[in-house]
């Protein structure tokens, strides 16, 4: 039986999710078990709740406890959404010991109380009033008394440390807050509602309907025309028009073709694609199937980074279920295979990704030929990002014009961002393209809280586009988020990571951080990126150590331009961006970091560069 409730605040008339729909409105607890909340102990938590239900009185039987994908406000995880009279409502479990994951600390009595309240509460307020502390194991012990043994490490293992327990907090989240209210879920429409491990729930909400429609009613040309008209552009970073790419692949000379879903999401601080994989994998599979249909491919791959074990597990299960149902696999005209990366950021680059799928070193090759012309085993290959593919079923269902009406002139539809860093509320937001950075970071994210003991908080900059992007200073926060506006400021949309930087962070240091990332992730094939990024990092090191002269900033910029202009692939070409954009918007900080004294004096003082660290020479000579 599929069980789905109502949307938090459906801005969409999401009929299929409305309460009272055939897929059961009943009382349910939706526990987020995606990676963010899992880090907060969601695994042990849902286990404890299920156990409590099994032993609780029959009153709790009517309650459905299910595991769902990301509920958006990851910083407060583990989150529990409740559906019932007056619902839905969202609750956060917290612990008074910052070092303990709340989900792992809940005691059996507390779990029982929670389940009973969820099963019987006449409304959200009653549930919100639940006092978990009253059920705390040995609640008589004073707060914060040391727990015995070395046990409660970061996250204690289940069973929870019982004597003394850990203080738990239970707060209701305000779903009318802009963080939730301004979201327009399209890609994430079902994420947080359905059990990602249940194909029945996905089917009950119409997933795979458009795939079926494609095969029965639509021609590949019609599908491509629709994607064309929708104005959809790639969400993997470059923003290439998706319809155009599909046409290129479809119009290659006859022969085999492949489709590939790029789920290598490597930008640090980005977790949008993961949320789709973990929250609604069937939607992605449907999108990929439609893409395959549109370009005439009969086999395809999903390339997922190995650092996402949960996403891999859920995707694998989803694929198996779709095979069992006869939706994908033999006889359906499409075979999909999952491939797992092995820790290489550069494998997100499309030609490197193809090499990796073929079991090679993930080193990019020059384009053209583009993968659309010559990809896997030399055949035309369509590569799209997770989010790009996941939005396709919605375009087919609601129509290209409906989609094109969302967003701006050049950037259509919605975009999912992962908000992280120094911001107050971190998590996932999906908003129409063109929403201003200020809306996302300040109105929704709540800006940067003041650090204890430091004067005032406040946003200093927002870093978008990861290591290929740049930072946007606070005074430009009214910039609308679309491909062109961000590029004009020397940053990039990237895949959708938004890392908020507070006043405490020095921009040259942040620039060095990203350069270090590029040094570590460079594949080493081409010279400018392999050797140039190393030199850039050292120049920044000199600067941070106060050894650089103002003139060295020119050298820094010159080398940045060289690496950008001559590197083989997007990694090297974009590696200087964080430095260039920091220089552009925060040059004063770089100048301030330079040494002021006369070069001659400094030279005399400066230590000679250290030689290689040699051990003592043989024979005992120094």
């Amino acid at each position, binding site marked *: 039986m599929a069980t789905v409730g109502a949307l938090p605040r459906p801005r969409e008339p999401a009929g299929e999710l409305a309460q009272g729909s055939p897929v059961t409105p009943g009382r349910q607890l939706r526990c987020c078990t995606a990676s963010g909340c899992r880090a907060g102990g969601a695994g042990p938590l849902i286990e404890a709740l299920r156990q409590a239900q099994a032993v609780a009185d029959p009153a709790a039987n009517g309650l459905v406890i299910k595991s769902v994908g990301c509920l958006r406000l990851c910083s407060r995880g583990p989150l529990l959404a409740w559906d019932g009279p007056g619902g839905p409502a969202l609750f956060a479990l917290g612990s008074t010991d910052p070092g303990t994951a709340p989900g792992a600390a809940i005691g059996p009595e507390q779990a029982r109380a929670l389940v009973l309240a969820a099963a019987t509460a006449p409304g959200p307020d009653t549930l919100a009033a639940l006092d978990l502390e009253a059920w705390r194991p040995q609640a008589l012990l004073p707060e914060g008394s040391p727990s015995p043994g070395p046990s409660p490490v970061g996250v204690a293992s289940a069973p929870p440390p019982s004597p003394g327990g850990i203080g738990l907090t239970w707060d209701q989240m305000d779903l009318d807050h802009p963080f939730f209210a301004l979201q327009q879920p399209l890609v994430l429409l079902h994420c947080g509602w359905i059990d990602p491990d249940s194909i029945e729930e996905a089917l009950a909400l119409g997933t795979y309907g458009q795939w079926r429609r494609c095969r029965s009613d639509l021609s590949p040309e019609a599908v491509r025309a629709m994607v064309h008209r929708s104005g959809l552009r790639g969400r993997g970073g470059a923003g290439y028009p998706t319809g155009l790419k599909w046409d290129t692949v479809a119009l290659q000379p006859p022969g085999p073709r492949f489709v590939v879903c790029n789920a290598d999401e490597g930008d640090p601080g980005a977790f949008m694609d993961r949320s789709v994989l973990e929250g609604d994998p069937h939607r992605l599979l449907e999108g990929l199937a439609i893409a395959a249909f549109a370009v005439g491919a009969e086999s395809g791959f999903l390339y997922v980074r190995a650092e996402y074990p949960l996403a891999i597990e859920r995707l694998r299960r989803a694929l198996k279920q779709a095979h069992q149902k006869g939706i994908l696999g033999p006889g359906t005209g499409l075979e999909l295979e999952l491939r797992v990366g092995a820790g290489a950021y550069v494998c997100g680059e499309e030609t490197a990704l193809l090499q990796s799928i073929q079991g090679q070193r993930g080193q990019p090759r020059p384009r053209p030929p583009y993968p659309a012309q010559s990809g896997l085993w030399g055949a035309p290959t369509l590569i799209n990002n997770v989010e790009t593919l996941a939005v396709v079923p919605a375009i087919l269902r609601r129509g290209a014009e409906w989609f094109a009406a969302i967003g701006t002139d050049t950037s259509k539809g919605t975009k999912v961002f992962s908000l992280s860093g120094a911001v107050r509320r971190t998590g996932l937001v999906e908003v129409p393209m063109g929403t201003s950075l200020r809306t996302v970071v300040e109105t929704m994210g709540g800006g940067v809280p003041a650090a204890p003991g430091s004067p005032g908080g406040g946003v200093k900059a927002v870093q978008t586009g990861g290591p290929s992007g740049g930072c946007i200073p606070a005074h430009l926060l009214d910039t609308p988020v679309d491909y062109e506006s961000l590029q004009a400021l020397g940053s990039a949309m990237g895949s959708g990571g938004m890392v908020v930087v507070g006043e405490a962070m020095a921009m040259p240091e942040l620039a060095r951080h990203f350069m270090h990332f590029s040094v570590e992730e*460079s594949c*080493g094939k081409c*010279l*400018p990126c392999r050797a140039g990024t190393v030199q850039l990092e050292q120049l920044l090191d000199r600067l941070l150590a106060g050894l650089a002269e103002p003139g060295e900033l020119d*050298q820094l910029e010159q080398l940045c331009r*060289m690496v950008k202009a*001559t590197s*083989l692939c997007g990694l090297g070409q974009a590696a200087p961006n964080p430095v260039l954009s920091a220089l552009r918007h925060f040059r004063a900080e770089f100048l301030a970091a330079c040494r002021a004294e006369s070069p001659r004096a400094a030279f005399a003082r400066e230590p000679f560069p250290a030689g290689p660290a040699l051990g003592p020479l043989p024979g005992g000579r120094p």
Partner: protein
Amino acid sequence: MAALTLRIDGQAVAVPAGSSLLAATRLAGLALPVLCHLDGLTPVGACRLCLVAIEGQSKLQPACTSEALEGQVVATNTAELRELRRMAVELFFAEGNHVCAYCVASGACELQAMAVTLGMDHSRFPYQYPLRDVDASHPLFSLDANRCILCSRCVRVCAELEGAHVWDIAGRGRHCRLVAGLDQPWGEVDACTSCGQCVEACPTGALFHKDDSTAEKHPHPIRALQLRRVHDLPPRPDP
């Protein structure tokens, strides 16, 4: 074979369809610096020295891997390109340990020649002085990794022409290095036929004959002919 025409540095040139821009440039009688390219081997576009500016394209393209197209207008020798190449050669010199005065290939080294051609007499970037090994385990040849510029010509010549695939690049980024077999001493790799083609293919003094000493590595007359035979084959169909 169909021919097509394009303009390179203001000069009109007709080339067979399917030629690379590098071949076209050479047909036009112009020189283009190359390091990772060797006629007869699959081009990889790694050293970035052969970058050219194609009118209407914002990105510079490597001539060795790009197909010449009808009507293209190409510049190979602008001031900007010269400066970029010079910086690239500086990065090469700073990245490894190149002491030309003691090098077996001095006088016959393509990297050295490149520096001379581009007027690079010192590197503006700090030398990195990496600690690298010498592998003298092979009875006939040696590898001095200090001079390796990771062009992968040896890897390709051994895999594509000799079919032995003794070499490969291991590691990644600045940790990249040339390895034989499972990171073994060269002399212990059974697959090596001691054909010496990798030594001939190496543009620097990284791979050399054991009996050569300073400035004695010279192109082997017969090997060069063998390699050239391969490159006289019709151009590889570019996929």
